[in-house]
């Protein structure tokens, strides 16, 4: 019984963390604060994945997003602003039209969410998913899986080529 009453509490807490940090990302005036708020959003989403019995995806989310992408973004912020800057700006323009647009889209989509009768099944008891995911990756999804490694290799080489120092005059 206590598990049943604890589950909605965990959901609302994680949802609040996710959405409030996302609001921090969207509305903060300081890009460094935005980056740290993004960490709250990503961790909250990872918690929601755990509630949805997707343990492997949650771990991947923490490792790749929080450990990789977020650190990369902080590096980019630090590299592109003079360190002496006290107020690292994060300028935003057109707030009111943008608010109108997201309010319109939000109302339409919220109506769609709550008006549709989704095909729902009773979720089973949470079980480890790693075996099943690995099995699917090497059978049904083998081609996308191999293509993914190619895409990552291309992205890696592309990032190196784009961000290296240009040696002017030495090419000829």
């Amino acid at each position, binding site marked *: 019984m206590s598990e049943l009453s604890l*589950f*909605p509490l965990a*959901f609302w807490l994680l*949802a609040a963390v996710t*959405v409030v940090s*996302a609001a921090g*990302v*969207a509305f903060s005036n300081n*890009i460094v604060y935005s*980056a740290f708020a*993004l960490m709250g*959003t*990503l961790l909250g989403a990872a918690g*929601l*994945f755990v*509630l*949805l*019995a*997707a343990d*492997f*995806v949650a771990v*991947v*989310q923490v490792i*790749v*997003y929080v450990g990789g*992408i977020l650190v*990369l*973004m902080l*590096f*980019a*912020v630090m*590299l*592109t602003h003079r360190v002496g800057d006290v107020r690292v700006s994060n*300028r*935003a*323009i*057109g*707030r009111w039209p*943008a608010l109108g647009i997201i309010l319109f*889209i*939000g109302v339409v989509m*919220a109506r769609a*969410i*709550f008006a549709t009768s*989704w*095909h*729902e*099944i009773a*979720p089973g008891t949470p079980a480890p998913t790693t075996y099943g*995911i690995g099995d*699917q*990756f090497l059978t049904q999804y083998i081609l996308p899986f191999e293509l*993914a490694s190619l*895409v*990552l290799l291309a*992205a*890696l080489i592309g*990032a190196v080529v*784009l*961000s290296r120092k240009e040696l002017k005059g030495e090419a000829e």
Partner: protein
Amino acid sequence: MIGLSHYLFVSLLLFLLGLYCVLTRRNAIGILMGVELILNAANINYIAFARHSTGAYDGQIFAIFTIMLAAAGAAIGLAIVLGMYQTFQTIDVEAAETLRG
């Protein structure tokens, strides 16, 4: 009882905040953060449907592919931002308008 529509609603809020971020930010890294928010909203949808609607692994596998593509996109995007900073000394996207006709 927490059902599918609760997760969809959280994901909708995340998507709207990401869209707002993309629309209003003039800092290239801020825009990339908005894109990450939108991708996370999509991931929550995938996994919520996998749990509450199909009961199979497909949704989780697509979420993993999305995370992978987001990582590749962030690496390339940040490399482009750094290149832009070397050229224009700023990452304000309105300063980089030399391609505008």
